[in-house]
């Protein structure tokens, strides 16, 4: 079932208006990120903040994007729908947005880390990769 709302001129105007609706949660969140980044640098401890765990309106998103800025790294993982991983303009602060196969949000996180785990190759996947590679090599003609 496809429940996506078609993008029309009217909805883009509505989106523009909605982008100014705020809950007031952006400011305390930015302070939390500031503390987490300090902790990462001083103690090496990573922090993950679940954006789905608090009321967050489009206006808050706008403030967050404006203050954190746009960074240098942008990665898309295509498993079970897309996951968009991007480093913000504040190095060490990453946005991780998981979408389902219909392009709808599954979950949204801010990770304060030097490298998000989900970007790394997982040990089990590498093991499976090695197994698959060996099989492929054996099928090669000499």
């Amino acid at each position: 079932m496809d429940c996506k709302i078609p993008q029309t001129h009217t909805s883009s105007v509505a989106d523009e208006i909605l982008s100014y609706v705020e809950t007031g949660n952006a400011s305390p969140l930015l302070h939390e990120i500031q503390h987490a980044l300090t902790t990462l640098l001083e103690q090496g401890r990573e922090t993950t903040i679940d954006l789905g765990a608090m009321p967050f309106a489009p206006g808050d998103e706008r403030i967050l994007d404006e203050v954190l800025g746009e960074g240098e790294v942008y990665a898309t993982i295509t498993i079970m729908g897309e996951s968009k991983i991007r480093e913000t303009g504040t190095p060490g602060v990453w946005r991780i947005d998981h979408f389902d196969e219909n392009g709808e949000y599954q979950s949204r996180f801010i990770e304060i880390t030097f490298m998000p785990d989900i970007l790394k190759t997982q040990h089990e996947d590498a093991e499976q990769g090695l197994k698959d590679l060996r099989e492929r090599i054996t099928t090669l003609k000499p």
Partner: protein
Amino acid sequence: MANTPMLAEMMKTHGISRRAFMKYCASLTSLMALSPALAPRVAEALENAPRPSVIWLSFQECTGCTEAITRSHAPTIEDLIFNAVSLDYHHTLQAASGHAAEEAREHAMKQHYGKYILIVDGSIPIKDPGYSCIAGISNLDMLKETAAGAAAIVSVGTCAAYGGVGHADPNPTGAVAVSEIIKDKPIINVPGCPPIPVVMTGVLAHFLSFGIPELDELGRPKAFYGNSIHDRCYRRPFYDKGQFAEGFDDEGAREGWCLYKLGCKGPTTKSACATVKWNNGVSFPIEAGHPCLGCTEPDFWDNGGFYKPLSVPAGDYRDAGLAAVAGGAALGAASALLAKAGKTKAAQAHETVDAHDLEKSS
């Protein structure tokens, strides 16, 4: 039938990577309102969870709960969790019928006695057990018999959790909740009319990974029912600023203001609707412009009217009608006066009355 493959093995069989599993566990942890730091523990627990047997009993219900869960567009790993569960009896979904179906239930009960999960949707009539029977067995007897060997019971939907529409006034069948009959088993209530599909999956995943979740005073998992819809509602800032829609077509409605005055039960209703939403996270009733009905709360059908603000005492309409009767109106004209009284009162108090309220009174 139940067998032993673990989720990890099934993932390999289906070609699902560890990275995909990490994504799923991160989203599931968020859904369960757990700290993101617990995601690795959720992954580890799910990977090692044994495959449980599930018996699903449907009593006085509309099949809405089953419809919701089966028509949800589940991510692949959620599908796998359902595959990981051995659904040994579900009379709506199973191919077998009659004695063959009942034999499947009896076999599962015997084979997994003390270990299976019992899921129930629908209320149980106790006024006369003959009101609702399956294969000649009353709902009451089937529940008692099946609950005896269950490790835990999940009451899915408001009917099983609190009696629901069957229990609404005047409750002609004497409908009650599972918890009013079974007293010696852990019961997890997953209310909603119907519950959000991913909440049902989440409760199952929580059971598989951490066992019985922490429950609130109404038997609901705190992870999904810990906050009121009001606290998580994107329209909450309008409530705080005192900006309310007072009709479904006024300026406030068009501007997306708070629906409190239109009868929204969000402030007294605990559910994840405002964060998890429906139809793959597309929307939820308030976002669609309709007040919350409070369907995850006991007796929400009898809560004084869906379109009456919470600040208006329940039963106000009935009081107005009784006053009209007491005033000397003939019995035949009483209902018309009741409707008129309601309309006049609404106009004076600027209270919203919809067609259904008036129909009930006329």
